Structures are given as structure tokens and as C-alpha cells.
């Protein structure tokens, strides 16, 4: 048992740090540090830098262009990226549709899509949820009816994250209306420029446009865009769900945000002292820092178990629950640290050219919006209630 990294792991960590110090554009880093939304071009620019280095898809096998890293190397990479202020990986291409195409797609599909995913020549989004099917995904209604060499797709998907930037969408569609709900679902790749596809923004709690409804109005999709077999889509979706859960705890990003919280709390004052020295507030910060420490060790235990090929169990549900709760707590404390200044609405402040127009400190303006935005983390990707069901059934046998 040894908590410290090995010499090799340390050397790798140094490599990553040097690379990030040299290559991460300062404008992008500053936006990440200040919790501002990135543009499409900023995501793409950074992904192309990573790809040029050969680090475009850390988890991919070497044969498809991955760097061939161990689980711990990937963990180190993720954490250093987050701490340095690199944009989060937009997961829908490299972490979600790509593994499915690698495992179940045809050689043609692999050749056609994977190189464009790693280079971010395509922007993918995910067409799973529908208005009527959230936690109960299998009840989805979007239909794909065979018509010669095409499927005719009709229906509506919702919560399609950043669909406004995307040119491809992977969808679960119903290809057989009768029988068991799970048995009639197929996995389809759809070019969003196809006539009949339309994207409608959803404005969320934080006032941002991050998610959308994506409508399909008799959209003709070539049968060659079907992944694997017809009516086997549920299997592929389950594979995807079980497959890509690395970094689900978000340790690196939470560490970065904790540092930001501490910086704010050492600037703000209470009773004439830095807020961070206030016993009340200090203990709240200490509590979340301790929870994060424990989650980091739990995460490392899972990584270690994966390396030795023992099954870590449905423990990723634990990582998801605690990870999302910690993210939310940090964002809430940061907002409370800013105090009354956090009352200013971020959009208006932005329109006024950052926070310069206001008397409050620059750090205060995005805090409420970030707190609002992160409420999603306990809802999406299988709500924390669903995760607790999973733990009860899969680990506890209840």
C-alpha cells in the first residue's frame, strides 16, 4: 500500500504539467478559471492542440489513435487538465459514441467517424432523453421506420447538450413498436444537416443556453448509419453506460473550484477578518475539503482495483453521488462567500462589460449562475435517486 505516485507516474505528471503550461491558451484558461461559458471555437481549438500532441483521446486504444495510457495515467492527465484550467472534454464524441462505434460499428463507420471525432472535425451530441422518458429511458417514442435504404425518423429528443454546436447526433430510436420496450430500440447516427432536423434552445435555471430540444420531422437516415444490429440499441446503450465512467467523480475540477472558493473567502471579509478565518465559514470549507479528500482516495481505490482487474463494483454510482454533491456544495459556498454581491445577475453584469461596472469584486458575478447551473449534476447522467437504486440493487442486494 502506497499513496504516493511511483517515479514513472511522477515523471508522467511532470510531462503533462509542462505541456499544459506551454500549450494551454491563456484566454481559454482564464475563462475556465472564472467559470465562464466557452465558445464552440475555443473547445475545438484546444482539442486540436491535444490531438496534435497525440493526446486527443486518452482512453482510446492505440489502434484508433489513443496514447495507450494506464488508468492511473488517465487519471493524472484528467486531474492536471482540470487544475490547469483546461476545458472539460466534450464527452459525446470521444467518450460516448466513439466506444460504441469501436465495439459495435462497422469498419466503414470506424474509418469514417473516429478520425473526425479525435480531431473534433465533427461535434457530436446525444439523442437519448425525451420529454416523456427521463429516468425511464426505455419508454422512448422517437420512431425510425424502414423505407428502402433509409430510416424515416420522427420524434423529439430533449436535453441535447450543446446541440447548437453539433453536426452529428447519436440517437436511440424505436424500430419495433410492439413487444418489450427495451427490445425494439436501435442506435442510429444522424447528420444534423439532414432536412427535418431542427434544434430549439432550452434556457435553464442559470439563464444559459446549454441544452436543447432536437426535433426530427420525417428525417431520412441512410441504413448505413445504423450501428450494429437493428433492435439491439438497448444493449449498446447499456454498454456505453457501463463503459465510460472515468473521471465521473470530477476530483480535479472540484479541487480547482475549491481553490477558487478559498481565494474568494480570503478576499471577502466578515467582522473585519478574512471570511476564511471566520470559524463558521472555515469549518464549512474544511468539511467539503475533507469530503473531497475522502472521495479522492475512494476514486484512487477504484482505479487501483481496475488496474488489478478486480471488479470495483457498482462503485461508480458512489463516485457520481458524492462527486456531484461536492461540486454543488463548493459552488454554493462560493456564492455565499460573495455575499450580497452574488445578487447581481451575471448576464446583465456581462452586458455591462464584466463586473467593472459594479462596485463589487470581479469574482462575485458568475457565482450564483454557477451554483444554479450545477444543480443539474444531481439530475443528469442518471439522477442521484437512480444511482441510489443501483447501489441498493447491485451492491446491497435489496
Amino acid at each position: 500500500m502506497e499513496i504516493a505516485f511511483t517515479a514513472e507516474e511522477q515523471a508522467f505528471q511532470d510531462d503533462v504539467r509542462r505541456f499544459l503550461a506551454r500549450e494551454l491558451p491563456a484566454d481559454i484558461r482564464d475563462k475556465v478559471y472564472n467559470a465562464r461559458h466557452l465558445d464552440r471555437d475555443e473547445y475545438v481549438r484546444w482539442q486540436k492542440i491535444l490531438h496534435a500532441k497525440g493526446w486527443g483521446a486518452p482512453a482510446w486504444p492505440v489502434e484508433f489513435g489513443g496514447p495507450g495510457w494506464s488508468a492511473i495515467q488517465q487519471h493524472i492527465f484528467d486531474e492536471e487538465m482540470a487544475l490547469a484550467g483546461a476545458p472539460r472534454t466534450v464527452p459525446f464524441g470521444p467518450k460516448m459514441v466513439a466506444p460504441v462505434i469501436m465495439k459495435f460499428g462497422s469498419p466503414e463507420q470506424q474509418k469514417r467517424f473516429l478520425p473526425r471525432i479525435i480531431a473534433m472535425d465533427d461535434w457530436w451530441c446525444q439523442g437519448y432523453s425525451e420529454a416523456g422518458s427521463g429516468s425511464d429511458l426505455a419508454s422512448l417514442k422517437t420512431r425510425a421506420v424502414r423505407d428502402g435504404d433509409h430510416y424515416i425518423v420522427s420524434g423529439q429528443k430533449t436535453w441535447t447538450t450543446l446541440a447548437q454546436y453539433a453536426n452529428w447526433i447519436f440517437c436511440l430510436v424505436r424500430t419495433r413498436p410492439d413487444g418489450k420496450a427495451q427490445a425494439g430500440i436501435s442506435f442510429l447516427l444522424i447528420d444534423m444537416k439532414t432536412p427535418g432536423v431542427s434544434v430549439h434552445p432550452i434556457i435553464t435555471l442559470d439563464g444559459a443556453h446549454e441544452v436543447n430540444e432536437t426535433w426530427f420531422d420525417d428525417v431520412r437516415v441512410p441504413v448505413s448509419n445504423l450501428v450494429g444490429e437493428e433492435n439491439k440499441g438497448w444493449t449498446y446503450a447499456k454498454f456505453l453506460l457501463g463503459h465510460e465512467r472515468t473521471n465521473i467523480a470530477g476530483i480535479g475540477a472540484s479541487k480547482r473550484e475549491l481553490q477558487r472558493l478559498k481565494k474568494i473567502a480570503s478576499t471577502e471579509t466578515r467582522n473585519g477578518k478574512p471570511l476564511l478565518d471566520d470559524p463558521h465559514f472555515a469549518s464549512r470549507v474544511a468539511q467539503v475539503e475533507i469530503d473531497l479528500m475522502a472521495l479522492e482516495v475512494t476514486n484512487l481505490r477504484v482505479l487501483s482495483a481496475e488496474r488489478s482487474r478486480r471488479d470495483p463494483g457498482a462503485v461508480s454510482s458512489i463516485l457520481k453521488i458524492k462527486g456531484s454533491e461536492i461540486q454543488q456544495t463548493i459552488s454554493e459556498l462560493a456564492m455565499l462567500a460573495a455575499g450580497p454581491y452574488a445578487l447581481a445577475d451575471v448576464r446583465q453584469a456581462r452586458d455591462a462589460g464584466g463586473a467593472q461596472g459594479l462596485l463589487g469584486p470581479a469574482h462575485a458575478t458568475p457565482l450564483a449562475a454557477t451554483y444554479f447551473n450545477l444543480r443539474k449534476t444531481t439530475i443528469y447522467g442518471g439522477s442521484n435517486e437512480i444511482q441510489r437504486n443501483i447501489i441498493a440493487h447491485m451492491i446491497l442486494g435489496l
Partner: protein
Amino acid sequence: MDFEFTEDQNLLAETVQKFMAARYGSESRRAAHKTPGTWSRDVWRTLAEMGIVGLLVPAEQGGIDGGPVETMLVMNAFGAGMLLEPYWSSAVFATALLRRLGGPAAAKLLASLAVGEHLAAVAHAEPGARYDDRVQTLARKAAGGWTLSGAKSVVIGGGAADTLLVTARVQGGDGVSVFAIPRTAEGVRLREYPTIDWRGAADVTLEDVRVKSEALLGGEGAAQKPLDDAQDVALAALCADAVGSMKAALEATGKYLQTREQFGQPIGKFQALQHRMADMLIHFEQAKSMAYLAAMQCEAPDAGERRKAMSAAKVVIGQSGRYIAQQAVQLHGGMGMADELDVSHYFRRLTAHELTLGDTDHHLEKFAAATR
């Protein structure tokens, strides 16, 4: 001991509820917040005609001389309907302060507030002071009046106010004084912005603002007690607004659980969600109790008992509001995140209340100090 309302009070509550339902639907509020910081003078005039704007104004100045219980009932309805107009800042906080400062200038202002053509806001908090009473704005005696300089931050309703009730220290003197300053006075600069719940606030800078002698309201350096008293009235009103929002968020969530189906049944059949709703209801009942207590105690003569009750109320309101807002969003799932549903708006409003007049931690500490 008696927790019943009078007939008049019940009638008042119904009237305001009916007004909100008729004139202030979800749609018109949404339309308003497309232009952030916007509020409707039309709505304001109607509220004035109904006597609601002058609720706390004495009868001599044309008001209806209401008290904290009436305010609570009105604010319950405004919280449930999420009124965007600066009622709390002008018709409650500023009005309560003017009334307690007294004198002919304040009386004149009160009369003009009651008819709804004029609005006021209390400009008290200063940059870096957080939730504390730390006044550094300076008033110097000048020929025939005063010159004021300083800065005030996050003045709720500041943008809508015709008159700012500015707290300041008189140079060389002790204590806090209040000056009525027209927003149009030279040297007054307002930077307006919407708050996170689409009401308006402003940061205010005063650079050598010259006002006449009668701008000083109440005695020189004697405003601390009127200010404390008015803040407690405003705090009780804020609690009532929050309770209105909590009730509405709770009802919306209950309805959603009864109608939204997943896995072949309404999600309200899942026991974990039932218990969550039960906890939300418990929070709500405790918050409602404390809003009652705040209304009954916000004018209590015993300062110690009042401090305890007011801070305790803000703590319970803060914690209940947080729990109910967060769980209302959570139980709505993805839909809870959508601006389209009112539940996200309640979330914003309840968050804004937490950041107003001292947050939960601030009041927990004040309570502990008051009970030691």
C-alpha cells in the same frame, strides 16, 4: 395566544391573491423579465389604488396604517406570484424607515409614496461591509445644507427609487443619520442591474452631493434605532415573501409528482420521493411558523426578545427555503432546470432572499450572541 386572522385581514389576503391571479400571471411576469430590471408602473398604480402601496403609511398621510400581520399576508401572495415590482424595498422597508424617522419631511415623502407616484429605497449597505452595519458614507455640513460622499452597494429597488434614503455619518459627529436624496441630484450615480430573481438593484456612488438641510430625516446621528426597527419590519416581510414562494414551489412539486409517470406509475408513488416531499412539508410548516413569529415580534419593544425571534426566523427561512428550492428542482428532474417552469424561478427568488439582510450563518451567529 391566538393564531387567527381578523375578517379584514382575511379579506385583504384574498384581494391581493385575486389581483395576482388576474393581473400577474406567469406569462406577464415572464414577459417582464425578458427586459431585466423591468417593472410595471401600471401594476404599481393599481396596487396604489387598492391601498396596498400605502399599507404601512399612517392614515394622516393617506395610507391605511396596516401592521406586520397585514404585511405578512400581502407578502405571502407576492412571494407566491413572484411580484417583480419594488414593493418590499419601497412600500415596506423605505416606508417603515420614514415612519420611524418622523418629522415633516418624512411625512411629506410618505404621503407621496402612498399615492404611488413616488418610490423610495433604503441605501444602507456599503462595499465590503457584507451584512454588517458599517457606514462610511460621509455627510459634511455645508451652507444651507449637507454635502454627501460615499458608496452604497446592492441597493434593492435602487433603480426604481425616486428618493434614496441614504445612511451616513456626519463629519465629527457620532451615530448614523439618514438623508433623503433625490436620484436626480448632481453627483448621484446609479448603476442599475437586475438581481438573480429579476428584480432591480443598483450600486450607488455619491460624489459631493449637495442637499438642503431638510434632507436630514430624524435627528442627527439618531437613525440607528429607526433603522434597526425598520430592518426588522423588512425582515419579517421578506420571510413572508419566502414562505409564499415555498408554498407555491411545494404545491407545484406535489402536482408534478402526481402527474409525471416513469416506469409505469406516477413518480409520487416512489417512497423515497414521498419522504422527500414529507421533509419539504415539514420545512415549510416550520418556516411558516417562523414567519408568523417574525410578524408578531418585529415590533416587540424588548430588543433582546425581538433580536432572537428575528434572527431565528431568518435562519429557519433560509434553511427551509434552501431545502425546498433545491428539492423542488431535484424532484422535477430535468424539467426543474428549465426556465420554462416556475419552479426554477422560485429557486432563484428563494436564493435571492438568502443573500438579503444577512444570510443564514450571519443570523445563526447573531442568535447565538443574543442567547448567550
